[in-house]
């Protein structure tokens, strides 16, 4: 199931209010920020996973995604820009 990261009503960023231990049913309530990784959309998260799994090789990623090297590099640079923006919020 896809984790919602923005409010469906006003599109504001969501926070984590409750965490549950599945083993002992302990419930922790609070107001926690989502980690930056989870604030990215699924496609971007998958891109980061692929990047790590190919040991950071854009050439290998380009081959796997059937895209050109500069296209993959541009995707990575756009992602870096987005992460910088999210971190500075």
């Amino acid at each position, binding site marked *: 199931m896809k984790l919602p990261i923005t409010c469906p009503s006003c599109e504001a960023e969501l926070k984590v209010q409750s965490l549950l231990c599945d083993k002992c049913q302990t419930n922790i309530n609070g107001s926690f920020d989502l980690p930056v990784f989870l604030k990215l959309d699924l496609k971007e998260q998958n891109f980061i996973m692929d990047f790590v799994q190919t040991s950071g090789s854009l050439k290998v990623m380009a081959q796997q995604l*059937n*895209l*050109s*090297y*500069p*296209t993959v*590099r*541009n995707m990575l*640079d756009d992602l870096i*820009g987005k992460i910088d923006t999210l971190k500075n919020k």
Partner: protein
Amino acid sequence: MNKNIYNPFNKIAGVQALGIGLTAIIIISIIAHFSGVTFPSIISAQTGTNAMSIPRLLVQNLGHWIIFSTIIYLFGVFASKSHIRAIDIFGTIAVSRIPFILFSFLGFLPIDGITQKISAAVKTNPADPNLLSDVPLSEISILIVFALLTLAIAVWVIALMYNAFRISSNIKGEKSAILFIVAIILSSIFSYFYEIMIVRLIP
């Protein structure tokens, strides 16, 4: 329309693009030699000229490609936040010459004879309402087809060149459009001097 026709650079770049592009430039130079087409700058082509030798056409085509690619590479180095590669710029710009293969074939159409006939009629009696009555409909049709194809090829070349620049340098929006136009203007100026100082010296 298939997006790859005007933007294949999401799939092709680097050495592969350079190989395809250089092959295209060689093919263009060979066809243009036989059809009497020349390429005075990066975005212009002329028919009805005296046929150039294949080595001269190669020097002409390669020179304009190198001039434009060098300019946009320098723009990319200074204006892009990405670490750009020269091989991507030179490769993708070489690929964007491909539509000139079609234009080289247009040189086989008897455009020069038709335009000479029309301009002679205009000079003789410009006020004559039946000015073009002596020009056969088939020849006017050829002229119209030539004009439409030339326009389509020009749009295609510019779209390919712009996308090559945009993707290889990762410069977006208004900035990319402005830098692209400046690059075209600068390369046209440099190409003019290149034509005079280098191309005309080749037999």
